[in-house]
């Protein structure tokens, strides 16, 4: 199990390959990727379609296993864990935010937020208290009894963020979190993520929008399954440095 504060890195990728074989052809979705994501950082993963961003995020999120290479989460090698152990890692150390929010429609806001705690086996009262606290953090304390369908896109994404935070994860993974939102709402969401990052949460976000990526502290550019370049602040942003 990962031990907190044992490493300056939340995540380390060592020569990760993810290869899909389709008959005779093989697709190298990730083609030898090594990267360190330090604690407290806010990453934007960018790149053209098919460059391997989602594959990378799925591996980071322990939803998938690499074909080869090592993946250290808080210094523990998780690249060879079985399905149950990976589920446990996701449950205890990770938080997911999706492009399409992915709330469960038949559950209330409160129940959606508390869903990870339900699998963690928290008793009812504590679950409810934590859900209320997180709803307040994302500004939805008056929507606890609502269903996702009764909320706007931005509000739904806030609920998703609250849910991702409920287990106090080592880092947050966001796949195009603003992809389904208008510009104004996108800014709201990205500001919320920035606030969480300032409070110390490590965030890794996939996006193809430079305007969104600019808000992250670091940017990672993918191409053909390889890391093309890493920047800290986009080139047109003041103070940006190239890696």
């Amino acid at each position, binding site marked *: 199990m990962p031990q907190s504060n044992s490493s300056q890195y939340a995540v380390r990728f060592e020569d990760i390959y993810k290869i899909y074989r389709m008959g005779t052809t093989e697709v190298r979705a990730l083609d030898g990727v090594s990267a360190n994501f330090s604690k407290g950082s806010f990453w934007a993963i960018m790149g053209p379609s098919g460059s391997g961003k989602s594959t990378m995020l799925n591996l980071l999120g322990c939803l998938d296993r690499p074909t080869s290479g090592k993946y250290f989460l808080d210094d523990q090698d998780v690249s060879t864990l079985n399905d149950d152990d990976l589920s446990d890692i996701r*449950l205890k150390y990770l938080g997911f935010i999706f492009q399409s929010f992915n*709330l469960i*429609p*038949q559950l209330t806001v409160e129940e959606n937020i508390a869903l990870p705690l339900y*699998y963690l*086996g928290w008793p009812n009262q504590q679950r409810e208290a934590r859900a209320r606290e997180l709803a307040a953090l994302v500004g939805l304390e008056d929507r606890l009894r609502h269903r996702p369908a009764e909320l706007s896109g931005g509000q739904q994404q806030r609920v998703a963020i609250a849910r991702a935070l409920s287990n106090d994860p080592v880092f947050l993974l966001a796949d195009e979190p603003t992809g389904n939102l208008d510009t104004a709402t996108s800014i709201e969401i990205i500001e919320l993520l920035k606030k969480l990052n300032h409070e110390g949460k490590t965030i890794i976000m996939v996006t193809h929008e430079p305007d969104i990526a600019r808000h992250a502290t670091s940017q990672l550019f993918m191409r053909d399954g390889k890391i093309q370049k890493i920047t800290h602040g986009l080139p047109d942003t003041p103070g940006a440095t190239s890696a």
Partner: protein
Amino acid sequence: MFIHPVRFFRDIQLGIKNLMLHKLRSLLTMLGLVFGVGSVIAMLAVGEGASAEALNQIRKLGSRNIIVSAQKPSEEQSSANTRIRISIYGLLYDDVQRIAETIPTVNRIVPVKSIQNTGRMGKRTLDMRIVGTNSAWFDLVDRPVIAGRVISPRDEFDKSNVAVLTEHGTRRLMATESVVGESIRIGANYYEIIGVVRSEGATEGSMQTPDQQTDAYIPLSTAREHYGDLFSQMKSGTFIRELVELHQLIIEVDKEENVEATAEAVERMLEIFHKKKDYNVSVPLALLRQAEATKRTFNIVLGSIAGISLLVGGIGIMNIMLASVTERTREIGIRRAIGAKQRQIVAQFLIETVVLSFSGGLIGIGLGLLIPWIITQVVKMPTVVSLYSLTLSLGISVSVGIIFGIYPAMRAARLDPIEALRHE
């Protein structure tokens, strides 16, 4: 931990919630199970009812008794030319002797001579059946003595003019209860009433009890003297005459397990001395066999219905759950991404299926209470719904839920989380 108490109750709640989301669909899905469970309960209720009825009958008839009744042969035709016919049939005084002497398992024999006649007390009259018998009658046809005493061997020896009436008969003949000591006129003779017994006298069920509601019991010796063996009757312009010595024999066997063999021996014995089949041997214990046969028939019919309904119901449930898994692929992906283990997804869907089948079982119990009630009302067949059958039904419901729910649940759990999340 497969079943976590917090999650277990939440999963049940969630299951109910999901089923309530599609009320009609859930209800239709349950139908097969509802009929299956209803049939199971009805089947057991009819079986139980038949057994209870048979046991009750046997209690009234005496479980160690064999009842031999005189039966007028249907082909019985005397000389065709005469306008006066005499039918000679029935049991003989000698039969009593022969059976008692040759069949060792026979304990006692009660001979019965019965004559229809009118009883009179004061101004009231009543069509009665005079039963000429002996003192053992009251042991073999065991009924509570309400007042006075029953016929004694002394009465038989003395050919006394004494009668024992039934409670029912006395109520019809006399307003007061104290009839003992009074006298009753039956036909041309007066009898002193020495006692009153209760009677079953009902003809319900498949075998008649030896006693009837309006019996008057007198010593057989007295009956022979007063009425003889020849009975005359006018029937559609023809004078019908019957020569019958005894109308019935009640034979008590030493042990219950000897009853059927003894009945066969009696039958064989009678065959030798009776040219025609002018008697009928019946064994109360056979009622139990008959009840078991009824039970079997019902079990085959309703068991098939139940089996088919449960199978169809189970397949229906499986079908709906597979559809539900497809519909909720995304939800499964979300739960898995959040950290739900495969077995927790299995538990969730399995619990939902069992909630569905259990609800079907509950509705089925409602139907299962209704069907026996209707059977009792319409066919007049006794039914008994036992607690055991209700528990069994719920057990079956839950089993059907588990058996037909496991595959959809496993399918849900085995979905690849990444694929599931991508599902539209």
